[in-house]
């Protein structure tokens, strides 16, 4: 294999890795503040792509369409928290996780009814031929994918480290009771983390749709990848989520390059199983059960 080929695989690994990182961040934010694994995260990704496709088809300018899709999906995340999860707060993490599975099925069939069963295309964010980056030919959209992921990661870091909401989110990730006795409205913090998870998933779905196309049923597969990346990164740690995403993307590329493209989607499953067997605390952690 030539160096150029190798670089090509690295580039595609980074592109997928960036998307997985955004998804993993969504899983991680919700898990940190609730102890719940949100299985609707994949559908946030689907909504991002499908909403942009629908808006563009309706004549909305692309930039506005992306912003609208991200905002609308954030609202969906907040609504899921408020009306599906909050009423069941007292029932424990397992019940809440099952509710997120229900929400995921609901969103998927709603999307099918609203947008139809067909694959949809989204125009690239900027026109033009692929550009050469360090010897690899890279589609311009891939630069958007990586760039927007970096931007989102920086914005999230600022939010988490230096804002009052971020401080409250970190407090909730330690203990809800402790957060409440200092005056934090934990329900609102949890709602905010669902909204953020929605925004991150939708951003991933919107920015990658020009490369991959999208459809009402792309959520489950991406949900699995993002979950595997989050688990790889230690579930609950935002930096870990980003690292986990990039590593998973590169591992997949490696599997395609050195084994066979057939096995690409199996990588995430293998990673999940390995982490579960070797480092089960990466999944269960101190969070489950103690949280909501």
């Amino acid at each position: 294999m030539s160096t150029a080929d190798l670089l090509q695989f690295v580039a595609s690994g980074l592109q997928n890795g960036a998307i997985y990182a955004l998804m993993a961040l969504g899983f991680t934010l919700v898990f940190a503040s609730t102890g719940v694994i949100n299985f609707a995260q994949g559908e946030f990704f689907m909504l991002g792509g499908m909403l942009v496709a629908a808006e563009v088809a309706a004549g909305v300018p692309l930039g506005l369409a992306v912003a609208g899709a991200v905002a609308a999906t954030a609202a969906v995340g907040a609504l899921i928290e408020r009306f599906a999860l909050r009423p069941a707060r007292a029932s424990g993490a397992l019940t809440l996780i099952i509710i997120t599975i229900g929400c995921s099925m609901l969103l998927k069939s709603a999307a099918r009814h609203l947008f139809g069963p067909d694959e949809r295309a989204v125009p690239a964010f900027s026109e033009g031929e692929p550009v050469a980056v360090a010897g690899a030919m890279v589609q311009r959209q891939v630069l958007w994918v990586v760039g927007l992921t970096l931007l989102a990661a920086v914005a999230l870091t600022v939010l988490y480290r230096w804002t009052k909401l971020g401080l409250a989110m970190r407090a909730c990730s330690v203990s809800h009771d402790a957060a409440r006795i200092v005056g934090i409205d934990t329900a609102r913090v949890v709602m905010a983390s669902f909204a953020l998870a929605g925004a991150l998933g939708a951003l991933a779905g919107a920015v990658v749709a020009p490369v991959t196309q999208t459809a009402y049923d792309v959520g489950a597969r991406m949900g699995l990848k993002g979950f595997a990346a989050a688990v790889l990164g230690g579930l609950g740690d935002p930096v870990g989520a980003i690292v986990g995403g990039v590593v998973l993307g590169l591992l997949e590329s490696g599997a395609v390059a050195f084994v066979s493209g057939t096995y690409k989607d199996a990588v995430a499953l293998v990673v999940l199983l390995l982490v579960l067997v070797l480092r089960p605390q990466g999944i269960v952690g101190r969070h489950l059960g103690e949280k909501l």
Partner: protein
Amino acid sequence: MPDALEVVGLHAGYGRILVVRDASLRVEPGEVVALLGSNGSGKSTLLKAVAGLLKPEAGAVRLFGKDVTGVPPERLVSNGLALVPEGRMLFGPLTVAENLALGAYATGHVQEVLERVLALFPVLSARLSQPASTLSGGEQQMLAIGRALMSRPRVMLLDEPSLGLAPRVVSDIFDVLDELRSEGIAVVLVEQDANLALKHADRGYVMRGGRIVMEGPAADLRRNDDVRLAYLGSWHGKEPTDADLES
């Protein structure tokens, strides 16, 4: 002037298990009230119910005459109530500075309050950027009290602040307690060491089996034979000596 805190006929527990039955107590501004009782008698449960962490089954909680029964804890903070809970409940991975900032989350950060807290607990100044989990037990307890003070409370509930701490640290913490009283803060003090608690308290209540079975001025309780036998003697493995009582 209404009491700072008034609890009337409170019933509270966990799910269907009722722990605290018909508990009533009151604390005036600037008064330190000791809440005594052996392990499992329901002291922490009572504090949790007052602070809103548990919803009372019956009874009433009033802060300065305002009914706050069943109000969630996050809204009690801005009503002037602060809980220093059993086990401290610090935010371990967060820094000391962040823990203190979170103490002021509901009421807003005031620089003078932070300076006052750091003056009360000077050891914390040197540790501001350290994760709270890296502090010693005594420092953690100081941080827990400091965090509660950041909300400028008028009523403080302290659950066993001396548990597991070295005597010198305990005496530092009780010095601070005396200062809080002089500032007019009303304090409910749950303490394993009944002697120590009654030394610093104005009045005391004794709980047994979830009920308040005795109350009175601290000096009277220290001399009361029942209290001495049940709570002072047994905790020290000996009867309190006269020197204990005179000190």
